[in-house]
């Protein structure tokens, strides 16, 4: 796990994250993210085979709620905060392509 980060990786990640980076930002991020990943290399030397990953600090299970209707928000209040709304709905520019 030596710093594997290339400029095209950063460009690809920016696309996934819906961010556009200038050439200068691309260079800077390649350098900075590379440094952070290099620091993370201290973990790569560890043999963690068989260690169970922890995604959550402790083991609560089966937290559920009753299937009981609660009041919804007022539509006018919600749509008032929308950048664009029409006909009781949120308006967006054209969608290129269907949901994956």
């Amino acid at each position: 796990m030596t710093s594997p980060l290339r400029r095209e990786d950063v460009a690809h990640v920016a696309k996934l994250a819906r961010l556009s980076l200038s050439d200068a930002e691309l260079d800077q991020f390649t350098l900075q993210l590379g440094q952070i990943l290099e620091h993370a290399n201290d973990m790569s030397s560890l043999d963690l085979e068989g260690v169970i990953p922890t995604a959550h600090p402790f083991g609560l299970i089966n937290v559920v709620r009753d299937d009981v209707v609660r009041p919804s928000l007022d539509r006018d209040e919600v749509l008032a905060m929308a950048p664009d709304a029409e006909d009781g709905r949120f308006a967006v520019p054209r969608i290129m392509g269907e949901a994956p």
Partner: protein
Amino acid sequence: MTLPGEWEMVVGLEVHTELKTATKMFCGCANQFGSEPNTNICPVCLGLPGSLPVLNERAVELAMAIGVALHCRIASSTFHRKNYFYPDMPKDFQITQYDLPINSGGYLDLPDGSHVSIERAHLEEDTGKSTHLGGTGRIHGADRSLVDYNRSGVPLVEIVSAPDIRSSAHARAYAAELRGILIATGASDGRMEEGSMRIDANVSVRKPNAPFGTRCEIKNLNSLRSLHRAIDYEALRQIDVIEDGGTIRQETRHWDEIFGETSTMRTKEEAEDYRYFREPDLVDLDPNQAWQDRVRNGLPPMPAERRQKLTARLSEPSQAQLEAVEVVIDLGLENFVNAAIDAGVEPALAVARAANELAAGIEMTPNLAPEAFSATVLMEQGGALSATQSKTVLGELLASGGDPKSIAKAKGFEQLSSDSLGSTVAELIEQNPDEWARYREGDEKLAQFFIGQVMKLTKGQANGKAVIAELQARR
């Protein structure tokens, strides 16, 4: 449809079913189809900053019910985030189950005796809905879209079959049987036209015993008819490509209902990188045995068992009667049929009236008491009502309920019974001495002549069997 040459299709289905809960998967908003846009929304299902999901217990139980009905193993499971940007998805990720689904490793036996393995049946949330404006009102060529989040966060179970399906008819039978099971468990209303059950189909073709070919996924098939047509179209397309010396690309395809064809949506190279990871705002789900047993014990019998039970009441059923039994089971009408049989109705007649008359008025069956159905068909069987009259009475009962005898009386059906029919038959014998003589000499075909005449005079309100009885009595 049979495929040309030696080709065989290999199909696996992913069926998404909305669960019939009162509220959404992670919030208390109503899970309701057809509300005014954006009226069933809150901070959680709108993905507002700071909001957190809390799992609906009923959704978990319905998912377990589906798992039990499909003979799945119910296990400890986790939730993941599936990350991709799309405007109808308010958090820009979907909460779904990934490597550890609640149900896995089941199967479904179809009425034709075939067996389809179920890989998994997992919980996930639905997205909102976009309407496209400008152009043709479809997504392509639209100039903007409007989004309604009422459906956002509605609980779904995604049921993934193994690639065990071998024809479009087989796929259709699987989907229909699955739909029956979903309805029987109470998990879903199975209304495909409202989008509460949606199907993606993975289709490939091969020569017998050859390894599986490259598959294409057809998204969002919203009726059994589309499923059937899309699979056939896609298999033929793939065969054409291969026979022309081409190769199939793994891709996601869109089914166009109007043009009856599939087209490329996204190639494998353009596939999203979903960056799945554990949903940190939810804890693990690990239903203990007691909880599982409670769900298991609360389940009514499934369609296959009910079908078998009802078929057993018919002696040597014909193909048409077996099909009628399927209709009765699909529509959940066996309480009517069983009540009628128990009251002395001929099983075949009870099944036929349910599969035709009740099926035609299925949405009105809440008006009809099983006793009223039994009484009507019993009157028909006894000759007090003709078949046509019986159907008319059933129609009336479905429309507005009531008592079959009073309805028959009000319609004037009663006078035709006994006395009135007897005098009509006597009159006809007098008017047609030649035919009557031939009948008396044993020409049974002439019974049909007399029945026809009686029907003409009574405007179809007589019972054929009763006419024959009258003729026999005078022979």
